[in-house]
């Protein structure tokens, strides 16, 4: 465990600097599960099996959407109101898991979704709801830029900062704020995904 620098904004006075529990930035125990998930996806695409593609797209997309909404609108605001010590303890347990979970779910959803759309003939311009499909590409594209360009680097930088012998609370505060705001933004965009996907499936 390491101490965060003494001048932590919001830290209760007289209780000493918050401590950072031991944690792994990338949880190694989760890597075989990720590998298995990616291999299963490759097998489904290679076999071009309708049920398997549907499963990966729906399960991956449902979990991706639900997690984004939950983190953006439920966990994020709660996290913002917690004490620094509680925020650190939550982040060191939560963020490493997100580092493995979210890219896996996104890969499942997009790769299986593209293959599924191709198999069902939805990619053709002649498909009656092609416009909705293009709208979904745009929404996913914007979310990808936000998630990969802003959210993921902030997540990783917080974890590295927390690994330092004396983490800087100013850096952690700034990056956590960025993480919470962008999680909320992608959560809001997921509402658009829900509208588009239910429209396509109806």
């Amino acid at each position, binding site marked *: 465990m390491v101490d965060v*620098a003494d001048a932590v904004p919001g830290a209760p006075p007289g209780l000493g600097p918050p401590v950072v529990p031991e944690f792994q930035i990338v949880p190694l125990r989760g890597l075989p599960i990720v590998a298995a998930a990616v291999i299963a996806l490759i097998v489904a695409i290679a076999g071009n099996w309708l049920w398997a593609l549907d499963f990966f797209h729906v399960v991956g997309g449902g979990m991706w959407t639900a997690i984004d909404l939950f983190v953006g609108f439920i966990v994020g605001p709660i996290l913002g109101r917690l004490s620094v010590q509680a925020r650190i303890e939550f982040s060191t347990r939560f963020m490493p898991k997100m580092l493995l979970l979210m890219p896996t779910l996104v890969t499942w959803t997009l790769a299986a979704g593209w293959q599924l759309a191709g198999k069902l003939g939805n990619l053709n311009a002649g498909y009656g709801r092609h416009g909705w499909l293009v709208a979904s590409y745009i929404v996913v594209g914007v979310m990808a830029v936000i998630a990969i360009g802003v959210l993921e680097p902030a997540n990783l930088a917080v974890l590295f900062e927390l690994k330092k012998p004396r983490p800087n609370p100013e850096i952690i505060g700034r990056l956590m704020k960025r993480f919470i705001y962008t999680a909320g933004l992608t959560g809001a965009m997921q509402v658009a995904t829900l509208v588009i996907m239910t429209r396509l499936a109806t």
Partner: protein
Amino acid sequence: MSTIGTTTRKLPPVAELAVLTIALTVDGGVYMASHLPRHFSLAFPITDVVVCAALVATNVVLLAGIRPFAWRTFFLVGKWALVGYAVISGMLVYVFARDHTPAGPMTVLALMLIIWAVDIPVLLAFTVARYAEP
């Protein structure tokens, strides 16, 4: 360099250029995905790839000029991010190849994914290393 220095230090806009590159590759990818499997003009996606490649090259030059910098941290993060994004990009190339995407669009898509697989690790590595002690 002190810890305070890592928060106040002025650095070149590597992160901003990397995010712009991601946005442009996504833009090109969406354009192509919305036209496939039909035949379409590759003028826009090719321009997109050229601009993105120029941005990545600019970022490499900007990065090389930063002194001092936490290169050990940069390469530690960059190396593993590169492995991760190479797998993701490989998956996407596989899906497009599996769908018999025509050679022209396939080449442009592969180039976009290569840029993507290099640009994102640079962004992740830079974001972490900028706060690390050189």
